[in-house]
């Protein structure tokens, strides 16, 4: 059956309507989980609020396990699901730069949209910086074009890299997530004892 759009089951301009609806649900969930506040998000780095880790890891394992079951039940053609290609060094550098941006700016692009949506000027500042950053990258692209395409490994999965089944990879992620939920709960309890406020609006 699925995925519906790549198989041509949903056609025409309906996909933009669907994109709008999916986007709306995405924005709603980000905001209602507390991601319109940079101080909530940054809590993951200082131990006073692990909401980012909880929402992110829960979503990730639900989608991972769901994809495996959909595949097992024959509901989705996994080969047609997009696996982000890997460019080794550029993606490590990208993650590095974004990590720095994360702890300085307190948002990521998606969460900054929701911060803007409820009137946070720091959300607009982040988004403005983001636009400038992408523009700088594009303008300077000829300088590092070779590096940008280096380390290409194709649309490779985690299981293929470590020569294990993707079912096992998913299982390990689920276990790691549960351990992380427990450990961060303990840390958070301890850190919050010395603070008056740990959840922000």
């Amino acid at each position, binding site marked *: 059956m699925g995925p519906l759009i790549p198989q041509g089951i949903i056609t025409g301009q309906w996909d933009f309507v669907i994109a709008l609806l999916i986007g709306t649900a995405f924005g709603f969930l980000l905001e209602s989980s507390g991601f319109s506040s940079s101080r909530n998000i940054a809590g993951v780095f200082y131990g006073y609020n692990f909401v980012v880790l909880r929402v992110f890891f829960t979503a990730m394992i639900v989608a991972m396990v769901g994809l495996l079951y959909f595949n097992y039940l024959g509901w989705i053609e996994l080969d047609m699901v997009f696996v982000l290609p890997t460019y080794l060094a550029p993606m490590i550098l990208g993650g590095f730069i974004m990590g720095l941006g*994360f702890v300085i700016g307190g948002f990521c*692009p998606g969460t900054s949209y929701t911060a803007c949506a409820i009137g946070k000027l720091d959300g607009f500042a982040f*988004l403005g910086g983001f636009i400038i950053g992408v523009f700088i990258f594009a303008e300077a692209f000829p300088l590092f074009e070779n590096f940008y395409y280096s380390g290409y490994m194709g649309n490779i999965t985690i299981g293929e890299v470590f020569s294990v089944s993707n079912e096992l990879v998913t299982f390990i992620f689920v276990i790691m997530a549960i351990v992380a939920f427990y450990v961060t709960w303990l840390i958070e309890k301890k850190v919050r004892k010395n603070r008056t406020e740990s959840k922000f609006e």
Partner: protein
Amino acid sequence: MKKNSNINKGPRYINPYFGGVLLGLLLLATFYIAGRGLSASGAVKLSIVAIVDKIAPAHAEGNAYYDKFIPTDGSSPLFNWLIFGAIGTFFGGMLSGGIYGRLKKLRIEHSPNITGTTRMIAAVVGGMLFGIGSQFGRGCSSGAALSGTASLSFGGLLVMVFMFGIGYVFAYFFRKLWI
């Protein structure tokens, strides 16, 4: 209800695990419908491509990065799934903020230890870094770290590990901004 809301003065957010399950189901539905995951940074990239292509078409075509994203059939780069998704994300955030009473007048949120100006500068700098990093990373937290890793992409995992890992490495140096 009223009495309860007076006692509990904290912000009203949904349970993070519940939110995570819903977000995971949404991501799964997106994979099922579109064959790809959620995205946030792609919309900004395409908007910039569209603007540069409009103002300086020769410059855009001469630059391999802009040129990569200009549709060959002559349609606008804005006529894209990612743009509609981002518009939705904005309105979804507004909807949630409206329902939970967080949709208010313009304001800067910052730690009491820093000024609003410092927070604004940090937000611009952080945004710029994210803008550059997300292009090298082939996506941001949504497209690469979350959707990429959920579809078991090795590159997605790399972005996720380095994004959070480096955040922890540098957290000490930027602690004044937050705690």
